[in-house]
């Protein structure tokens, strides 16, 4: 099966997309972030200091994260936010700290350590509250990631002019929405982006997690129009034209989780003039990670390396 690089997804950006998200971010901005950042001796090493982080997000949900920085450094550090996959447990980003970044690995609501107030479960998160844009799970979930940028901006050791975001799968989708909504992001690297072209993805592939939506529609066939309406506000493709920072995207042409067609459709809508797509034939959802991780390193070094 050869994916069409000119594939166009069916999602249409709502006319009131910007005002919807402006209202959401305004509400978010009125919530005191109330950061807690406590050194975790158990997870720290001689070279890397690891902190357990908590902060407030939309609906006053307490969101957790792991923050890792080089123990010894001089001057300001580039800041990096690592955003997690759908069902993976957010990692402690010691590897990124080892490369010289002050790195926050954020655990949006419902994930381990962030699930005491909100926990739709897995499967479940992808369709929770999906009949209304104001109740959909990802309304808060996206905000949790965006608030991670506020955390980095709050840190004395982070250079606020050198902040990037990266992740793969759901992390790729969150990279897209974060780069679109936070002008402080100076570079973004998105892998195998999920949450892009939802309604096409559920036809192009029949694997979880997208299959959650097919399960939902089979049980709630009368809700299809409402589901489509809601998702149009959350689709990474609707966010893409807002991205202005340098960005790279990598996709696997045999991706069995996030169809490569949706990756192409996303990339073609990205507004940045400095964008590059890496297509990996012979690769699935890892999207050429073995080869591409070096490219991400070089890309981030190019855009964040110099103080």
């Amino acid at each position, binding site marked *: 099966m050869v994916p069409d690089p000119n594939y166009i997804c069916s999602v249409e950006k709502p006319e009131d997309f910007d005002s919807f998200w402006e209202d959401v971010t305004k509400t978010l901005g009125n919530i005191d972030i109330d950061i807690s950042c406590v050194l975790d001796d158990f997870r720290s090493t001689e070279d890397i200091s690891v902190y357990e982080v908590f902060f407030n997000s939309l609906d006053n949900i307490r969101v957790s994260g792991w923050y890792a920085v080089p123990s010894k450094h001089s001057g300001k550090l580039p800041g990096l936010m690592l955003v997690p996959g759908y069902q993976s447990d957010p990692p402690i980003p010691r590897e990124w700290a080892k490369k010289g970044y002050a790195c926050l690995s954020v655990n949006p609501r419902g994930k381990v350590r962030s699930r005491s107030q909100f926990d739709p479960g897995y499967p479940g998160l992808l369709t929770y509250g999906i009949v209304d844009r104001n109740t959909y799970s990802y309304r808060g979930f996206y905000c949790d990631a965006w608030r991670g940028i506020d955390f980095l901006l709050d840190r004395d050791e982070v250079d606020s002019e050198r902040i990037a975001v990266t992740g793969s799968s759901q992390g790729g989708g969150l990279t897209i929405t974060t780069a679109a909504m936070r002008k402080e992001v100076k570079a973004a690297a998105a892998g195998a982006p999920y949450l892009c072209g939802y309604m096409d993805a559920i036809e192009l592939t029949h694997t979880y997690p997208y299959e959650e939506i097919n399960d939902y529609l089979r049980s709630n066939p009368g809700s299809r129009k409402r589901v489509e309406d809601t998702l149009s506000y959350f689709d990474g493709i609707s966010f893409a034209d807002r991205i202005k920072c340098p960005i790279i995207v990598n996709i696997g042409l045999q991706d069995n989780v996030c169809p490569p067609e949706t990756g192409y459709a996303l990339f073609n809508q990205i507004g940045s003039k400095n964008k590059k797509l890496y297509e990996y034939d012979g690769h*699935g959802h890892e999207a050429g990670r073995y080869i591409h991780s070096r490219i991400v390193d070089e890309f981030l070094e190019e855009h964040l390396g110099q103080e």
Partner: protein
Amino acid sequence: MSKNRPSDFGSFWYTVGKELAEIPVAPEVESIPMRSTDFADLYGVRLSSIGPYRLFGYLSIPKGDGPFPVIYYVPKNASVLEIIPQGTSNEIRSRYITFSLACRGMRNSDSPYAAMYPGQLTDGLESHETYVYRGIVADTVRGADYIMTRPEVDKNRVAAWGNDNAILAAALHDSITHIVSTPAYLFDPIESLSKTDSYPLAEFGDYIRSNPSNSDMARSILEYFNLRWHAQSITANTLIMADHEDGIYSTETLSDLKELIPGEITLHGSERSSFKDGLFAENWITSEMFGKEVSPIVPEHWR
């Protein structure tokens, strides 16, 4: 390599098995219509393991007349319980009974014990009695006990699929006929620490660094779980999915494991592509379960 097989290895696991045998499985089965399709029905299953501790699993049964072969997705070192692994064609549920089990600490089996990730691998590592993985292995075996109670099961075709626990399931439960395993942290775990700072193996490194006075005890406890000492009990046909040549558990590292397993074994080195590796595993299990003339059921983009 580790050379320290505990002298009471056999009695340690005999005791676990005896403890498990004294706890009834006591299954409670509930239909989940939302995740059922025109080719398979899905159920939520609650059952008991040692403690006693109630566990949760997802059981999918193909529509039509059985018996059907089984893929038992063994408990993971991760918080989320999936119905079938992410990226697997949902249609495999038309061909196999699938059963995925959350061990204690994972979502849906997290009351009263909710594990953290990282964290699960070192909880209670202070003593043999308190180490949580003893219970996790018992949970894994209990999952196989439950499967064998189902009348729809073809008892000649029962595969355990997952990471290290797939090997432990087959070593400790003789109903497992096939294994697909990607070892990640229990083959010579202490000796492997020097190769990586990455989790999950790094959990052991964190523990030993922070508890130097207990490091000898931790090392000795982990030997009971070392795949090296379980390998000789395996008679199932086995596929080991190794890392690529630079990885922690490369084919070179796992060649010892291959030699120790008396059953028929295939050792596959990663081609650094989830597509190629995944397709290899799907082809292997289909061939083993249905013969070489039957095609595997794979996701659209793998066709």
